[in-house]
């Protein structure tokens, strides 16, 4: 392979990885970044989205986009129920929220195993392969990354231009002040948790055609999601994008040179170094410089 082809190949992998990281992290970034809840059941929200998508695809013969939307709604409704029952008692209790969501994660994984067995029938990956300039990649991964970028845009629009978004940002900055100005912060927290879970379910639905539908499918995403969110810092949109881009670039490089496992190691090492150098995340650094 020539140097040019190698670089193109690397770029195509970076592009695919970028989509995966954004999708895995976005819902978590909303919940962690805006609410300060460490949701260790995040992977299981992805799992629920993927299961709901696969089930509506097989049982209801729903077309893929509709099935993915059902996945988002299923995960969102689950998030809403858990927020009302459990999570709302744990705001401002970072570690307790972690232990509680770890408990939720155990329950969800085992429940999926009991209800659907060790493996649910998978879904075919649509669109087939894609050839651009001699580089072969999967068309679906390109669609996935485009969707991920579009979702980032949607989240931006929601937080920037809707009434909910304005109140949500006010609540996250200073909830006492927001309350005194008449914002029903309880509903804002509830809505934000639903929104984050919904986005996470959509991500699970998008992953569904690319993974085996097993109860533990979410655990494969959770570390990458956390690392992306923490490295990104406080700004949900810019942080998620910049950190997903840099981490996927470095991870793809490591993976291409030394194999997938080294790629993961390189990603984690990079995250450690970035946190050490920029302890408040990339976006805070960018904001201070500008």
């Amino acid at each position, binding site marked *: 392979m020539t140097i040019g082809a190698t670089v193109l190949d690397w770029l195509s992998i970076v592009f695919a990885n970028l989509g995966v990281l954004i999708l895995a992290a976005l819902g978590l970034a909303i919940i962690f970044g805006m609410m300060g809840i460490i949701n260790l059941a995040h992977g299981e929200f992805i799992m629920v989205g993927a299961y709901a998508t696969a089930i509506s695809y097989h049982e209801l013969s729903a077309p893929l986009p509709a099935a993915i939307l059902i996945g988002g709604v299923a995960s969102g409704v689950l998030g809403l129920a858990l927020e009302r029952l459990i999570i709302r008692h744990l705001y401002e209790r970072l570690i307790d929220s972690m*232990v509680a969501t770890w408990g939720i994660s155990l329950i969800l994984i085992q429940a999926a195993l009991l209800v659907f067995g060790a493996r649910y029938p998978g879904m075919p990956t649509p669109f087939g392969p894609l050839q651009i300039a001699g580089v072969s990649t999967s068309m679906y991964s390109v669609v996935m990354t485009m969707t991920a970028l579009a979702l980032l845009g949607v989240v931006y629009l929601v937080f920037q231009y809707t009434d909910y978004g304005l109140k949500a940002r006010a609540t996250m900055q200073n909830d006492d002040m927001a309350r005194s100005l008449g914002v029903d912060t309880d509903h804002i927290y509830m809505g934000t948790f639903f929104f984050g879970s919904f986005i996470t379910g959509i991500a699970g639905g998008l992953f569904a055609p690319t993974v085996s539908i097993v109860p533990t499918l979410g655990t494969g995403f959770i570390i990458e999601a956390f690392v992306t969110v923490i490295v990104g810092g406080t700004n949900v949109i810019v942080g998620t994008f910049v950190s997903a881009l840099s981490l996927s670039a470095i991870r793809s490089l490591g993976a291409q040179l030394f194999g997938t496992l080294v790629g993961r*190691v390189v990603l984690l090492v990079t995250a450690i170094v970035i946190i050490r150098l920029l302890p408040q995340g990339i976006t805070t650094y960018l904001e201070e410089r500008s």
Partner: protein
Amino acid sequence: MSGNERDPVIDETADQPSPADGRLQSLVDPFEGPHTVGNSPKFWAGFAAILLLVLAYPLFTNEYRVLVTTGFFIWIFLALSLSVIWGFTGIFSFGQTSFFGLGGYIFGVVGINLIDVTGGTNLALLAGIFLPAAFAAILGYFMFYGRVSGVYVAIITLATTLILELLFSRTAGQQYTIGEAALGGYNGMTGIPSITLGFGSTAVAFEGVSMYYLVVVVLVVLYLCLRYLVNSDYGHVMVATREDEDRTEMFGYDIRFVKLQVFTLSGAIGGLGGVLYAAQGNFISPPIMGLAFAALPVIWITVGGRATLLGAIIGTFGLRYLDDYLAGVSSEFSTIVMGLILLAVVLFFPLGIIPTVKNSWENSFDIPFLGGDNS
């Protein structure tokens, strides 16, 4: 057993030593203070009674139960290593399993290579404690002198243990054999010797029931040492760092150095636990450093009560016992029950079991629980 010598009428003044047991009191004095639950002759009497039960346990049960119970006790070392750094110093480490795993692997590598030469595992034991401590010191220097704190410490320590898991998973094959010890990749390292103390033909190997007694003795010694530590002047500095970093620094303490020291100590305790784990099972494998195991000590000490050594011990033993029991009764529902217990504890006993029991005892009876002070 000072409780027997005590006149029951004056029991309520448990905090003031009476002349009758002044000497016994001065014996336990260094182990008592505001940072531990259980500061009274009654507590020590109960402690001695439970210790006697634990020591007698192998006489009344079969070898399999002894083996399983030894395993429960070994997990307590992992919990205590987290308790000193998180419960007492306020630094939430999510990666104590990295020291546990390193301790086990180092013990294995050194032990397998030296057992035929020296006849014992003395050096392997020391290496399995001190090298993880050195690793913790380096990692701690990297974090605390870079002013990394809060959730960022959690992510760095978690990433560290996951990196170690990934690296050790990659060690399958001939090129990853250190001397005679094959690291074995994802399947793990086998043939790790039992703890063998002494030299040549006089060396004693600890297996089965004798390993049980060794673990119990080491655990009791560690518990007493940690009680001494957290109630000493240094322990006050640890707790002060947890409560208010800025104020502690204002008093002239270098909190970076305090954090580094305690983190190093927690690495040593974690390493010791890993040594015992690898020596008991003669085996260690990479998933011990993975996400699932990394979360376990956090859960144990959250349930037991993280700012008490007793809570770490009782939380760990209780949850391991329950897990084992539930898996025996119905393996399908055991993890669901476990998840529900975690939720219930976090929602209803947010301080953990031991502090909750202590507080409600003191509120209802107006006397100190196990003689702990009321402050």
